[in-house]
Each structure stands twice: as C-alpha cells, then as structure tokens.
C-alpha cells in the first residue's frame, strides 16, 4: 500500500544511500544540534567530567586579551565538586581564568552581600578566591540594588556586551527549575525578580539553620530565555533527589512547570549526571546514553593544559 513507507524502506531500496547519508552527517557535524546525556558512576566522577569539559572548552577557545571566554555559573551543593576540580587544575598551572568572564545565574534579594549564605560569599569562598580571575570580569547580580529591575536589565546588557555566553553551566532544582525560574516561569523569560516557590525555600532552609523565617523569599535570576541564548549549556544533576526532575526534564515534553525541559530545544546541551540521578529514567534511555560514553569521553580525554601553549 502506498503512503505507508517506513523510513527503513528507503535504505533497502538504494544500497548507495548509507554511504551518502554518512557523508551528509559528517558535513553537518559542526552545525547539527546535539543533546548529550553523560552518565558517570558517582558524584565525584560526574564533577570531574564536568570540570574537565569546562577546562577543555576554555583552553581550546584560546582566550586572550580582548577575546574572553564567557562562562555562566551556578551555586548550590551540586557544583561544589566541579569547582574544586577546576581550582585544582588552576593550582597545577594547567588552567588560567585570566581571560575568562563569568556571569552567575542568580542572587538572593535583601541578603547582605557579606552574609555567609549570599551567593557572593559562595562564589568567593568556593571559587574566586582560589583562582586568578580579574574581579572586573566576575559578574553577580546585586540583590541589594536600589532598583532591582534596572539591575537585571543592566546584567542582560553586560552579557550582551561580553558577546554572549559561550558555556552556561547550571543545575536543576528538585522541582525542575533552572536558576530561580520556578515552576510556571515563562520559557522566554529574561533576567528579573522572582518570588521563590515553597519547594525552593524548604530546600534552602538547610543553609539557614533550618529556620524557614531566615530564608530569603525573593531572588534575582537569569531567565530561561537568557540561558537559552547561550551558545552551549551544561546542566549538572546529581543525587537521587533530583532523579524525578531529570525524568521530567528530558523524558517528558517541554513544559513551563519543569523549566529545565526548555533545553530540549537548545542546539547544544549536555546533561552531566551520576547514576542516582538517572533512577527515574527508563532503562532504555540510560542504556542508550551509557553506550555512548566512549564518544562522550573523547570530549574530556585528552585533558588539555595551558602549560603546553
């Protein structure tokens, strides 16, 4: 019967097609959209893989005076291992942040900048103080600015002036949010003021001595649209408590209740996870992507070093 052609029938009818298709794929190699799900055994290995990837991307970019590599950065417990590895590469002399510009995703509103739980404190203690980044190139939203929307607009402008973000590294909340784009956020959103969802406040309480009244209720955050504008996005997801959110983000549809799902439509996204984070995925999905690890590992092996330059 006509009209019921199955794609596989195209191949059967023409023996030369597989070779042509292969050459087609090769020529589109640098323009094809790609989604990778990189699954490592545990938190430490996932952190290391992510750090190696970032390291290689920076070095291969060959940043220099006037040609900065722009990096979007997250906070929270997930990226700590990754930051530690990056610091290690820096201390070994393999990686310099001299020509790297960073843009953090978010910051609490109304928390004094030197409060131990502010994202400024987090970035200083866990990253900036250990590396050689120029303070003028480390951008974090100011949650105490007199005009918060103006602060957000200025942040968008800074990203634009820096030439856009080369690689935006992010995490995922248990409710599937990216940055503070809580469930229900517009998938086209830009940097703005957000009221935090109860889920987020509860998840953050552990950083404020378990006292809910001390947790900030508002934050400035990059929008989903802001992160979607990045040339490449890497999402770090580790731990069983994030498993359901990962499932919603990549096995269900694009949905503003699980804002990370927006990255299904981004041309270059990498999800880096540990085994525990895959617990809610289908076995088929996990097996498929684990089977691709030999391809994924080519992105981090060899690990480049600035010493060679």
């Amino acid at each position, binding site marked *: 019967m006509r009209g019921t052609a199955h794609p596989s029938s195209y191949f059967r009818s023409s023996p030369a097609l597989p070779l042509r298709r292969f050459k087609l794929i090769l020529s589109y190699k640098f323009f094809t959209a790609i989604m990778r799900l990189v699954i490592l055994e545990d938190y430490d290995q996932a952190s290391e893989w992510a750090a190696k990837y970032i390291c290689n991307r920076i070095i291969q970019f060959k940043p220099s005076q006037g040609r900065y590599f722009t990096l979007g950065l997250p906070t929270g417990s997930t990226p700590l291992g990754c930051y530690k590895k990056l610091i290690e590469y820096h201390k070994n002399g393999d990686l310099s942040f001299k020509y790297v510009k960073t843009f953090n995703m978010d910051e609490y509103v109304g928390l004094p*900048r*030197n409060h131990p739980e502010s994202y*400024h*404190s987090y970035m*200083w*203690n866990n990253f*900036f*103080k250990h590396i050689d980044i*120029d*303070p*003028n190139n*480390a951008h*974090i939203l100011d949650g105490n600015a007199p005009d918060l929307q103006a602060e957000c607009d200025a942040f968008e402008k800074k990203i634009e002036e820096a030439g856009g973000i080369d690689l935006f590294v992010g995490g995922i909340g248990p409710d599937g949010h990216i940055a503070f784009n809580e469930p229900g956020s517009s998938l086209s959103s830009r940097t703005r003021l957000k009221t935090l969802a109860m889920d987020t406040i509860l998840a953050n309480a552990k950083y404020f001595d378990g006292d809910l009244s001390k947790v900030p209720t508002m934050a400035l955050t990059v929008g989903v649209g802001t992160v979607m504008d990045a040339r490449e996005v890497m999402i770090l997801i580790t731990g069983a408590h994030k498993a359901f959110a990962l499932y919603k983000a990549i096995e269900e549809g694009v949905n503003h209740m699980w804002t990370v799902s927006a990255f299904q439509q981004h041309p270059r996204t990498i999800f880096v996870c540990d085994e525990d984070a895959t617990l809610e995925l289908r076995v088929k999905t996990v097996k498929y992507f684990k089977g691709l690890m030999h391809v994924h590992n080519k992105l981090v092996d060899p690990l480049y070093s600035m010493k060679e330059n």
Partner: protein
Amino acid sequence: MPSNKSVSDAPIVQFTNCRILRSHQLQREDLWVREGKILNPEKLFFDEKGSADIQLDCKDSIIAPGFIDVQINGGFGVDFSLATDDFKSGIDLVSQKILSHGVTSFCPTLVTSPPSVYHQVLPQISIRNGGAHGAGILGAHLEGPFISKEKKGAHPEHCLRTFEEGAFQDLLATYGSLDCVRIVTLAPEMKRSSEVIRELTKRGICVSLGHSVANLSQAEEAVQHGATFITHLFNAMLPFHHRDPGIVGLLTSDKIPAGQRVFYGMISDGIHTNPAALRIAHRAHPKGLVLVTDAIAGMGLAPGRHTLGQQVVEIDGLNTYIAGTKTLSGSVATMDTCVRHFQEATGCSVETALEAASLHPAQLLGIEHKKGTLNYDSDADFLMLNDGLYVQATYIAGEEVWRQDALGM
C-alpha cells in the same frame, strides 16, 4: 592587579600557602594586608575589584597574632626599675630584641621602687606603636609598692608602702604620673584598696592582684570593684586551700560580676610553676590564662649576677634567685619558650597556646578590636612560626621587622 583605588592606592600584600589563626582555629586561608592592617579580601574583590599587588609564599608556616607580654621587667642587661641616664635607649634595646621572641607589644614592668625611681622613669616611658625599631609599648605595669610584706618575693621591703592615709592620693604621689600606666599590681587586703581599685579602674588602668595574702572574699571584693587580673598565679600569694582558696579561687569563683572575666598571668618557664599546677589552672579557667615572661635584666645574657631594681639577682640556667637565697626573682625565659612549654606541659592545642600569648592579653587590656587577633581591620602585627612554634619572622603593621636567618641567630 591593583584595586580600582576607590578606597586606597596603597599596595596590597597577600600571604599565601600558610595556616592562619582565626576564630580560634588554624585555617588554611591567605592573609591579606594593606596599610598596616589586616584586609578583607572578599570586600576588596567585590567592592574595589581589587587583587594583590604582591604575593608572598609562606611555605606552609603558621601565622599567628604577635605575642603581647604584659609583665617584663627588662632584659639584655636593661632593668626597667633602674633610673639610669640612658633609660630610653635601654627600653629601645629591649623592645628591639624581643621581636625575635615574637613579642610585638609589651608593658615594661617596674618592681617595687622608691618614689624617686617612678618620678624619673615613668615620664620616659611613652605609649607608642611598634615597628622596625621594636615592639610597641602599651604602657607601664607597676608591680608594687602597694603589696604585702609577707609576700614581697624579690621586692625590697624598705620600699613597700600602704595607702591607708590618703588612698588614691597616696598612690598618685608615689608614682607621680599615671599617664602611661596600663596595669597596677596591688594587694587587695590593704586598707582602702577598694577606693584605689575603683579610681584606677575609672581611669582605664587595669588592676591586678598579686604579692598578697588576701583570702578569697577579699579577692572577690577587689574584683567587684574592678580588678581584672592576677599577677603570676600561685607565686607570691597564699597557696590554694580547700576551705579558703585565696586568690587562686578567683578562677572558679561565682562572685565575678556578669560580663567580667578574671584573667591570670602564668610564667610557664617550667620553674615558677609545676606543670601539674599549670594544668590545674588551665583546666579550671582556660579562657583567662595569660602567658607572661616576668623576664628580668638577665634575660638574653649569660648566667651570673644582675640587678633587679634595688636587688642583686643570680642567674643559673633558667633559674633566677635573689643572690645568696632560694627566693625566685623573675625569669629569663623568652615569650616563645613560654608558649612552647605551655603547649607541651598542658597538651593543649597549638591554637590555645598561641591565644594565651596574644588574644588573652589583648582581651585583658581591652584592645582585642585591634591587637591579638588576625581579624579584618586589626593591626597587622603577626608572626610566622614553624610547626614546633619557633618564630621564623615577626611583622608589625604589615612590615617584616625580624626574620630568622639561615644561621639561626
């Protein structure tokens, strides 16, 4: 990269690869210094977009606040209780020499002396900052003459006095001037001592109890009137007795006014106090322990005879006695030796030993907001020590003022 100069364009020095004593712990953090003070690097990074101009690798040293010696009678042949013509150069010599012991601030101490000595010497002591010329002078410590005859120790009996008649006026007449006086040691059982203690405390002078036969209630009364220190605990006071602990009982007294802490000096040279006694005191009241040297003119010199005010003393190794007797008279221990010995004898942590010579004396004198810690905005008086707590380098106001050279001299 220098800062954006919005606050200052003075050079910023970052001491790296070190362990610093902060918040009662040795932390692996860098120490940042600008304009003689400890700088907050996070504020520098975010507010001024600044970073270090100079980075110094400390080779994994311990960095601790400079030691503060609140009882030192002299050293290197200099006796602070002797009114010589070259008294000023004597005090300069000692202040310079003790840098190598890790002392960055001190209180030159005068033992019981005739009024003429106080009138001549005190005007020559000025409170001043330390630097390359030597350790800073915080003010004089006057140990006597208003002390007990029974517990005079090495102090000359003929110079002892009371303030029975004119209380504070008697004291003022004896000393002449209190301008540069920081601490006064007296015996609280003396008549009218409460008035005197209140007057001194009102003027910001720290009152210390010592060379006394006071019982515990007399000592507690003195504390209630403002006394906050005990001069060389155990020495020159009644021994601890279980029905009247005497001055020693202040360590665990429940009559100390709220918000007030009693500090006590200890000479941990291994001679003045048995290590077991040192441990008892430390365990009873660890936050009050202040290490002092009580060093005399012979400190830093060869064994033999030296003067201590109106007396002649004899040095034999670490022991110093009034010549021809077995009465201890001061010590020849150095501050860093005392810190090491204290740490060994009590088995306490390195942090505790270091704080007993820096934080606690600063708290005693009410200057811990600028001395005795490595907190942001404190004066950058600090030491580099190795793991054995030997001083490798001394810094005052962020400048290196002494360094252990390769020959170890």
